[in-house]
């Protein structure tokens, strides 16, 4: 292949490195107004009264809205959220009123003049407490909420989804087990920290057409949610996402758009902008849900896991419109990438009065694997196996079955395990570096499937230009992962024209075709497949016209470097440029007209799992498998951990762009390191105690370890050129591999993250005593 599999330069590279790319906050429209938000200082409180008179009187203030003006709920999977609190505030920071004014400063000053009277309610600040019978209810009306049929809320409780997986006969397997072990873990909330905070502009024309410019991953999903929330038909609602400065999931759903739309609807013609501060980002956008987990494992004498029982309790925060699906995804994947015959899993999404949980790179997989992969090492040690051996015995191989009971036909996990074990030399002990610093190694496996509705669709349009160049239209968003380049490469390969002759346009629901969402590591796979189909469509039109022109059967023609060429007589050819507007005959007449290729794709045959057992023959598109190995050095005097080396190997089906995929894995490893060692959204009575980079630390370039990044290519038959997703999966094994390496070095297992220097030192000292 000429373009696929090559490190084609990023098509958006020059604009990004020169700073000339325009993001939403760069957009300045005439007569623009600025919004600011009044937020609840309480985690849970009835709103008794809101006095806006003083704020209204301030010069420059144009309008003020409160939640009672727009009470319709919205949400992706479960319609449980209002953009402005209605009746009560459910988290510290929830929007209760919004102002728009001539300047940001006036808007902020007006916000300070709004007086809100609250009646403070007891708050749920721990998901486990939230499940108790007498717990305060965050959503007493849960039973009335509209919900997709694959989720199971329990009205009258704080449980917004209870996913069950019942495979085989777990109770019996536990009775017969040679060895049973149970471990508990806790994963705290973290935040995505995209470099660009959330930002949006809304403007409604005189005729009722609403345009929303938003830094979002999913213009179409955002359009759909907003359409429902504000009763605007889709043909009158346009969402434009010109560029996204990182998302990691936080820009997948709707956040601040719904705050400014009511203002735009009341002030027709005036564009209204709202840009979050970094503090907003930590408190008022999305966070990764917390997880309390319990894993019970049954093993036989040979080290084969015969059963697992999992309890996942997700701290979903105040609204779980998106989080319910994380609980489901975690349930599907609850065994980890292991072939286990008997499974009993309960995964609960629980409302709390915490910041809103939402999609975050990994979609629950990072959290559950932090538990699964440490549990596995504990089991291995108890029964006298090495971490490598227990994974070799239990790891998923073709012919095995997943937790949902699906037969596995494709898995490169064993190849990845061998590769990483060799690269990190897992079976050789780390050398001591000094008496004060100890080293250790750890490995972890991971798997992930795209967590999306069964019928999540993608589409693409390719338009050929009369000079032989082309425009590719998709709504897959380049959020930094490189999708613009990958889509372009796929088109270039099918059409056999060089990538620099293709211009990609994305992110405008009026102009670029449908894409469900840029999430779930599904873009290369699903949008890529739609691009492939669109280009095949254009290609077949080109061949059809060439057959007439050249008098050669279609089957004997191919595309090559901008020409349609005879496979047999290579000098017989016609330029794509000459066919782009149709075929013109010698007498000046023409046929067919301009060539537009269209492609649509839905992953085939994905069907719902059974409601009661969670079992299904094919409930997900595919699984991506991979392994990482880590070597760490721990300072036993201070507890500081340094990650020295990470080896990674994933089965990605097909590497479309080696440099970009390496970048994805490097970023994933760093993000995984951040959560393992540094990051935690510190919550006290529902309040975020560290809502800035002063006290919320992510890794810097100074923390980058040596990385050995490899791939296995067992093709995914439904993906373009065999590709499957890897952007999220690559982060999944990093944190548990670090935890396992710290254990190898020190004998310390914290069962929680971040594994800070202080926690490690404290555990080392406790062990000495």
């Amino acid at each position, binding site marked *: 292949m000429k373009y696929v599999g090559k490190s084609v330069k990023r098509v958006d590279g020059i604009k990004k490195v020169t700073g000339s790319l325009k993001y939403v906050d760069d957009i300045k429209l005439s007569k623009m107004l600025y919004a600011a938000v009044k937020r609840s200082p309480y985690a849970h409180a009835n709103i008794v009264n809101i006095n806006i008179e003083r704020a209204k009187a301030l010069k420059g203030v144009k309008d003020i809205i409160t939640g009672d003006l727009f009470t319709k709920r919205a949400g992706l999977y479960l319609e449980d959220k209002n953009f402005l609190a209605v009746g009560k505030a459910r988290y510290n920071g929830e929007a209760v009123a919004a102002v728009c004014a001539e300047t940001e400063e006036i808007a902020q*000053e007006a916000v300070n003049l709004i007086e809100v009277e609250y009646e403070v309610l007891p708050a749920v600040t721990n998901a486990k407490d939230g499940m108790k019978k007498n717990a305060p209810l965050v959503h007493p009306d849960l039973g009335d909420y509209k919900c997709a049929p694959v989720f199971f809320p329990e009205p009258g409780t704080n449980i917004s989804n209870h996913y069950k997986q019942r495979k085989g006969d777990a109770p019996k397997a536990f009775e017969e087990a040679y060895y049973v072990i149970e471990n508990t873990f806790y994963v705290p909330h973290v935040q995505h920290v995209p470099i660009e905070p959330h930002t949006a502009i809304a403007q409604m024309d005189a005729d009722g057409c609403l345009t929303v410019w938003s830094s979002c991953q999913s213009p179409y999903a955002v359009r759909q949610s907003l359409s429902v929330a504000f009763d605007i038909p889709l043909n009158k609602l346009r969402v434009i996402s010109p560029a996204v400065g990182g998302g990691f999931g936080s820009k997948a759903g709707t956040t601040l758009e719904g705050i400014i739309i009511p203002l735009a609807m009341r002030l027709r013609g005036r564009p209204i902008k709202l840009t979050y501060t970094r503090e907003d980002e930590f408190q008022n956008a999305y966070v990764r849900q917390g997880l309390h987990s319990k894993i019970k494992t049954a093993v036989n004498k040979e080290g084969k896991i015969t059963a697992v029982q999992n309890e996942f309790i997700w701290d979903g925060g105040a609204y779980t419109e998106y989080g319910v699906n994380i609980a489901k995804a975690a349930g599907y994947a609850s065994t980890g990438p292991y072939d286990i015959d008997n499974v009993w899993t309960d995964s609960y999404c629980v409302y709390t009065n915490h910041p809103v949980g939402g999609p975050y790179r990994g979609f629950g997989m990072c959290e559950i694997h932090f538990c699964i992969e440490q549990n596995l090492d504990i089991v291995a040690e108890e029964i006298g196996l090495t971490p490598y051996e227990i994974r070799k015995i239990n790891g998923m191989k073709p012919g095995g079955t997943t937790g949902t009971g699906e037969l596995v036909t494709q898995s490169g996990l064993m190849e990845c395990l061998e590769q990483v074990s060799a690269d990190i030399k897992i079976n050789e002990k780390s050398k001591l570096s000094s008496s004060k610093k100890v080293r250790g190694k750890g490995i972890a496996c991971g798997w992930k499937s795209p967590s999306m509705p069964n019928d999540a669709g993608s589409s693409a349009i390719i338009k050929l230009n009369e000079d032989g160049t082309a425009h590719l239209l998709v709504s897959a968003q380049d959020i930094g992962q490189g999708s613009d380049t990958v889509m372009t490469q796929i088109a270039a390969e099918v059409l056999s024209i060089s990538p620099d002759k293709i211009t990609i346009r994305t992110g405008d629901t009026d102009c670029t075709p449908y894409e469900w969402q840029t999430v779930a590591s599904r873009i290369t796979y699903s949008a890529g497949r739609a691009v492939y189909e669109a280009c095949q469509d254009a290609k077949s039109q080109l061949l059809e016209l060439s057959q007439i022109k050249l008098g050669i059967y279609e089957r004997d023609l191919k595309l090559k470097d901008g020409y349609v060429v005879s496979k047999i007589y290579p000098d017989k050819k016609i330029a794509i440029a000459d066919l782009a507007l149709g075929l013109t005959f010698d007498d000046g007449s023409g046929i067919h007209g301009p060539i537009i290729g269209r492609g649509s794709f839905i992953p085939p045959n994905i069907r719902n799992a059974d409601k009661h057992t969670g079992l299904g023959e094919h409930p997900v598109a595919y699984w991506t498998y991979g392994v990482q190995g880590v070597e760490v050095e721990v300072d036993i005097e201070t507890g500081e951990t340094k990650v020295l080396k990470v080896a990674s190997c994933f089965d990605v089906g097909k590497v479309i762009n080696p440099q970009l995929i390496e970048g994805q894995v490097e970023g994933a490893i760093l993000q995984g390191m951040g959560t393992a060692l540094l990051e935690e959204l510190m919550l006290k009575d529902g309040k975020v105690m560290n809502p800035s980079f002063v006290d919320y*630390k992510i890794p*810097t*370039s100074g*923390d980058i370890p040596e990385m050995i990044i490899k791939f296995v290519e067992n093709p995914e038959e439904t993906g373009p050129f065999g590709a499957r997703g890897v952007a999220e999966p690559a982060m999944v094994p990093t944190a548990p591999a670090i935890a396992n390496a710290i254990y190898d070095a020190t004998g310390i297992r914290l069962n929680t993250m971040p594994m800070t220097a202080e926690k490690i030192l404290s555990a080392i*000292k406790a062990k000495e005593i």
Partner: protein
Amino acid sequence: MNSVEYYSPTSLKEALNLLAAYGEEASILNGGTDLIVRMREGQSKPKVIVDIKKIDELHKIEIEDNYVFIGACVHLNDLGKHQYIIEKYPFLAKAALSIGSNQVRNRATCIGNICNASPLADTATPLLSLNADVHIYSENGLRTVPLNQFFVFVRKTILKQDEIVTGISFEDDDSILGVFYKMSRRKEVDLSTVCSTVIKSNKGYFVSYGAVAPTPVRLYKTESFLNENTLSQETIKEACMIASQEVSPISDIRATEKYRREIVEVTLQNSLLEWL
């Protein structure tokens, strides 16, 4: 609307006049890496800003008459990369380069770090252990105050409203050996959980710590013990015990009191081991 008047005097005299005229309403702007952040967070609300960066004489590092003088507007990168400082006072250079990011260090100043009087000011501990003097200029002329008398409390110094710190100086002493430690959650761009400078010279031991009390502090009891005893594994151990009790850290979002005391012990031990 909040509006701020901005002045950029070119002489000390002019700056003093502005400070005298506006009193409490005025704030001195140097690198701005603390002031601007505090203004954004609403913790400082000056009506008048007096930017001292255009006063040329404040930009120098001088080594004269057995003294090293660091001017008020010397950036942390200029201090940390100064050849003489690197050679003779590497612990001070290291402290200067441990603050913030490279970009921040291009703006932030050592004197600003001192005047901001954060308990965890990274350049405070080397300067405390160097027995540095703060040079303060006012209408009444120049006065110098030992740095260990300069800090009063968290973000409070003895500085009066109509005074400007022109620089800081310390004796250029060939016998000085020093060790700087910074314990932080992350290697780059982080605040100290604990920071320290231990100096050994002909005059004895000088031990200073940051982030373990309301101000950066000298540990006099620990110093006396060290000065009265010969360095050995045993005396180091005892000195560490004394130091961990002499400090008075608190628990906060970055670390617990207990961990800070443990780190005081470890850093003092490792500093002293250099000379055993």
